[in-house]
């Protein structure tokens, strides 16, 4: 086993563990423990990998390559760049928290449930490390299968409609991407992302972008989002908005920007307009949303817009900020969805009109929601503030009005997040809030506190990510050089 195979290990360990969980007739407790253990081992492997990562080196690291089938030049090629390393880290941490949450609430049909969560972990890591287009596509699609079943089986009352909508939307995008991949690969003579040339085809650009803007999502392709985020089990919503949505944004960064430079600048204004529209529209919807998860769901739409604004600003600051914001928002949204799940378990509902006054007698819940919420609304000094500031500075370099729209939307973010906090924690005691609704228990604290701690650490030292995502201080030239 070479040192580079740790990337493959991060992908295949959880998938192997999923098979073990499915095949062995373990008890519910043993299954859950095994899944949590594997997800923690993943975090361990990632930390070990991050410690050995050379952030000054611009090429692919921890790479592994082998032929998959040679006549069309498709290979099994995995490896990491600095920005993929951060997203892999986000994935393993978020999945560990989500699996832990599933264990804590004791999901029924545990073997199926934990197997699917582990499969989802492997597939998502696979998306972030694939360096071959067909492999990327395979993992991109493989994420959908466990998500579909997780939402459809363990979701809320409206789950069937939500799964259909979710799948039809995302598959429309990804199948057009498959067509684009076939055309790109046959024209280029290889499906490899590192070796592959740039393309000037606008059709191919649109094929890829279509998949990514649906996944991210950006306005007006977000039709699947509210239902899926509301009906999924909270830990799956957390993963969906925190990690899976980032796969779409990652695709823009890894594939679209470096491989389609001319179409990217041709459509830049259009994409920036969509991003700005998502930012404003998502924030407004979040402000009007009647329930806890709706606020977080629409704020995710807004944040996707913000990140896309950074990516397509085509500036160094924007790219740095986008990567930082992907990680920061990922952690924020995982924490918020888990807290939402905890609140819903205590009150049976997320309706803001019925909640209120939960801060009294529940200091841990109040403190954590407050901390995460304040980070989320980008209070100066927080990780989100650093990310959003960089993105807006990058957007400003493109044209001042993009930054103006973005800054306006940040005010909206403060409005919807403070509305959420006060509707849950403060105001008069809600009709469904009883004295039986306990404070966060030890198990829940063990999940959310580490996430909040990582966020606080990131707030203290945002440059840890924003200066370590692209080798050197010139992300734009790294993108132009196709990360070679």
């Amino acid at each position, binding site marked *: 086993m070479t040192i580079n195979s740790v990337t493959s290990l991060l992908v295949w360990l959880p998938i192997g563990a999923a098979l073990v969980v*499915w095949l062995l007739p373990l008890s519910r407790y043993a299954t859950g423990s095994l899944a949590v253990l594997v997800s923690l081992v993943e975090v361990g492997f990632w930390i070990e990998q991050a410690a050995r990562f050379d952030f000054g080196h611009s090429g692919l690291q921890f790479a592994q390559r082998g*032929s*998959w*089938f*040679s*006549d*069309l030049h*498709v290979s099994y090629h995995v490896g990491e760049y600095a920005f993929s390393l951060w997203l892999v880290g986000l994935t393993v941490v978020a999945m560990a928290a989500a699996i832990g949450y599933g264990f804590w609430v004791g999901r029924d*049909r545990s073997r*199926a449930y934990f197997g699917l969560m582990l499969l989802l972990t492997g597939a998502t890591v696979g998306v972030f490390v694939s360096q071959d287009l*067909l492999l990327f*596509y*395979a*993992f991109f*699609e*493989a994420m*959908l*299968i466990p998500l*579909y*079943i997780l939402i*459809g*089986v363990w979701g809320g009352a409206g*789950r*069937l409609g939500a*799964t*259909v909508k979710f*799948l*039809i939307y995302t*598959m*429309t995008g990804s*199948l*057009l991407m*498959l*067509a684009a991949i*076939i*055309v790109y*690969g*046959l024209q280029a003579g290889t499906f490899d992302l590192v070796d592959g040339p740039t393309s000037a085809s606008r059709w191919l650009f649109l094929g890829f972008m279509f998949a990514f803007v649906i996944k991210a999502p950006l306005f007006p392709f977000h039709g699947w989002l509210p239902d899926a985020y509301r009906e999924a089990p909270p830990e799956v919503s957390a993963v969906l908005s925190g990690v899976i949505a980032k796969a779409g944004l990652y695709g823009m960064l890894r594939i679209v920007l470096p491989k389609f430079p001319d179409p990217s600048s041709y459509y830049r204004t259009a994409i920036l307009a969509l991003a700005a529209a998502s930012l404003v529209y998502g924030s407004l919807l979040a402000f009007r949303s009647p329930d806890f998860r709706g606020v977080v769901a629409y704020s995710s739409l807004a944040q996707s817009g913000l990140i896309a604004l950074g990516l397509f600003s085509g500036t160094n600051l924007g790219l740095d900020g986008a990567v930082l914001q992907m990680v920061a928002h990922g952690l924020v949204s995982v924490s918020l969805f888990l807290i939402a799940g905890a609140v819903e378990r205590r009150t049976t509902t997320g309706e803001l009109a019925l909640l209120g006054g939960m801060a009294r007698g529940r200091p841990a819940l109040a403190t954590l929601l407050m901390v995460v919420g304040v980070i989320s609304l980008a209070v100066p000094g927080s990780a989100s503030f650093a990310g959003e500031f960089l993105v807006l500075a990058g957007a400003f370099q493109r044209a001042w009005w993009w930054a103006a729209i973005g800054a306006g939307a940040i005010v909206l973010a403060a409005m919807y997040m403070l509305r959420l906090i006060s509707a849950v924690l403060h105001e008069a005691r809600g009709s469904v809030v009883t004295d039986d609704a306990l404070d966060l228990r030890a198990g829940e604290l063990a999940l959310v506190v580490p996430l909040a701690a990582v966020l606080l650490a990131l707030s203290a030292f945002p440059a840890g990510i924003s200066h370590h995502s692209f080798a050197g201080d010139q992300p734009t030239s790294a993108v132009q050089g196709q990360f070679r």
Partner: protein
Amino acid sequence: MIATPHVDWFAISTILVLLGASGIALLGAVLVPRALRRPFAAAVAAAGFAGGIVTSVWLYVDSVDGHRVIANGFYRDRWTALAQVILCSVGFATTLISVEHVPGWGRNADRSRRDDHVAEYFSLLLACAAGMTFFVGAANLMTLFLSLEWFSIALYVLCAIDYDLEGSLEAGLKYLVVGSFGSAALLFGSALVYGATGSIGFPEIANAVGGQGLSGDLMLVLGLALIVAGLAFKSSAAPFHMWTPDVYEGAPTPVTAFMSAATKVAALVLALRVLETSFGQESHLWTWAFAGIAVASLAIGNLAALVQRNVKRILAYSSVSHAGFLLIGLSAGTALGGRAVMFYLIPYSAMAFGSFAVVAARERELGEAVTLENLAGFGWERPFLGVAMWFFLFGFAGLPLGGGFIGKFYVLAAAYDHGWAWLVIVGVLATLVSLYYYLGIVRAMYMRPSAERGLQTPAVAGGSPPREALLHVAVGLALAVSVGSLFAVQPLIDLARHAALSLPF
């Protein structure tokens, strides 16, 4: 004294093994006591198919240079041999699921008469497979038609064999009538081609077309069109698919499983052979014809499947739509298209067979036709079969859970390589539509509570039958092939490429 040609017995060994087994099974119907008839016939069938796999693998290894044997009537080459391996494997798996199922387990079946015709069933299955293994190696229009009728007649009887089962007789009759029409078209087409060229051997036809400047000749083109129609009938491609849903629904489910996998393999393998070998100069005609048929199959198969409730009918329409996908590869008319089709047939036959085998298990458990309603909760009650089923269905839909994904990728790549980007778009859109009904089955199995199921429960139907180890083995094999072909793309595509070298691309 009639001069007999030299016979290369090894070239037809697979056919002989299957025919021999068929004869022994038939003898069993008279000589073996009734109590032992079922295990005896099944064991003979299993041994026959296993022997067929061995001889055809041997033939593949030993036939690097393809040539015609026995008075130029049969091809001994890798294209034939690989198709024979697939056909015998499907036959072997069908034997496994047939042991407990066929014939006479239907609702009205008289239990005491259950074993009356079991040996005939296996005998026919072997004979049918023998006909198909001959069909895929046919080298002239005569052997083509003979072997087509050979396996078709066996299939007509197999469809109707469960005469206690509602719809089985009807299915047999319907298949007979419509199938005869297809055979007639093919025969008429062959006659016209013979009339135009004066030859029946596949390469001789091409030589005659080239030598006499017959390209575009009206009689030849008409003959080609009728041959294309006849083959499209057999591969259940639209608009020649009308029999498919009714026959697939009515036939005993193991027979359906066999038909959906094996008939398509035989028809498409032979179609590629005859079109490439005999009608290479007319490729501008038949590539467009098959592209049209592919688009029609994709459209009709997928749209019709959306409104079905009976799972066998859904899968039948899915089979029509897959004929469309496979024909995309065929219509490219290139070596890439050829090996794409051959590769795709491997996971496709595993998935098609496997999905019908799972339906057979559920059908037996309920004692009635499987619909989306009474499939509710199946995934949780039978975890292995449920998981296998979702692997097959997601594989059909082209999600990366099996070789179906790579197969789809390959045929679409072949279409683009041929310069038909529009066909790639059509294929992609068809996949999108197909997702809805494949996921509908998964949804029914896992996401609807069992309480929503209709009145008929296993308890009402006389209790769940015991778990069938052999059926599980067969489904497990299909699952292994379907998932394994995602990882072992290179070896399988090499097999297909070497096989396709036998064709004059």
